[in-house]
């Protein structure tokens, strides 16, 4: 009989999701080790004591990517791997992957300077949506309806000083019902899906959107799996919008929350994640 898998849970904060994951591991007889992302250090030599696999739940994109790289250096697999985190955690890289895989996604124009940003907005047309390349929960997203609004926003963003705020990810505003879809993918299967409704144009659950279970038909399943595969696969939440021309994928999240999804659908999400993590450890 093989030794039980020891899972390292790499985290920033312990939320209901992380507690559910720890409980799911315990229920399967798996040992866990909690690794706080603000306390751990990494040398270049492989430490003697390491978990068999790391479930990377850091909410910091920067820390998450470096940690998955460092664990890979030690020969410890991570869920998700650094490449997947880099692709899905950066909207520019994510959009490129979706486009390369032929996955429908809103029209997007990137500008690398405030000077070019206005041209990017004009190319997309109004209304346009400006999003930070990294980060989520709807933070720092803006919808601009006119050239005047766009100019003001670009000026404010460039005044923030950091070079990352002078990179502009501009997307067409997609008219949609007052809801979008979130599909949770683990490995090669869809675990559950939900609608997120909001009177705000942003439908993030973190912004108070209400949720309800969504049926997973073949079209939705196939598109979500293609989007997840485009990022390299793993544990991913695919966000889609329903348009007049069919479904379009606007984002793939590499460190997804699932408390609202579990509540809306009654589906156990933590269990399949831990099963997948165990499978990755044994590969």
């Amino acid at each position, binding site marked *: 009989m093989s030794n039980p898998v020891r899972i390292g849970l790499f985290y*920033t904060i312990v939320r209901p999701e992380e507690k559910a994951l720890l409980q799911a591991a315990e229920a399967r007889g798996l040992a866990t080790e909690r690794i706080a992302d603000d306390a751990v250090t990494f040398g270049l030599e492989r430490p003697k004591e390491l978990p068999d696999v790391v479930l990377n739940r850091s909410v910091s994109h920067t820390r998450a990517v470096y940690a998955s790289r460092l664990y890979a250096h030690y020969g410890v697999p991570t869920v998700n791997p650094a490449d997947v985190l880099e692709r899905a955690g950066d909207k520019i890289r994510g959009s490129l992957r979706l486009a390369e895989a032929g996955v429908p996604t809103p029209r997007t124009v990137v500008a690398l300077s405030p000077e070019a940003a206005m041209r990017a907005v004009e190319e997309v047309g109004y209304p346009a949506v400006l999003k930070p390349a990294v*980060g989520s929960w709807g933070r720092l997203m803006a919808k601009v309806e006119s050239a005047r609004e766009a100019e003001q926003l670009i000026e404010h963003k460039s005044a923030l000083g950091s070079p*990352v705020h002078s990179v502009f990810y501009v997307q067409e505003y997609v008219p949609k019902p007052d809801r979008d879809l979130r599909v949770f993918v683990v490995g090669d299967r869809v675990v559950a899906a939900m609608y997120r409704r909001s009177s705000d144009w942003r439908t993030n659950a973190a912004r108070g959107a209400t949720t309800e279970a969504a049926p997973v038909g073949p079209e939705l399943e196939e598109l979500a799996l293609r989007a997840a595969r485009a990022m390299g696969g793993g544990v991913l939440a695919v966000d889609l919008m329903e348009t007049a021309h069919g479904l379009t994928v606007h984002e793939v999240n590499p460190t997804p929350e699932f408390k609202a999804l579990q509540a809306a659908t009654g589906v156990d999400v933590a269990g399949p994640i831990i099963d997948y993590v165990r499978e990755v450890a044994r590969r």
Partner: protein
Amino acid sequence: MSGCPECEATVESATKIPGEVFPCPDCGTELEVLGTQPFAVALAPKEAEDWGE
């Protein structure tokens, strides 16, 4: 048992684990469990620019 750093309300829990974030039952400030033996809390870390899903 520990005190909320914001409102000094007594906060205690037998079920919380280190790293867990929860609102102070009195003032609602987000707190983080630093340790359980003894139980100690601090203000939860502030959301950084690269935080997300």
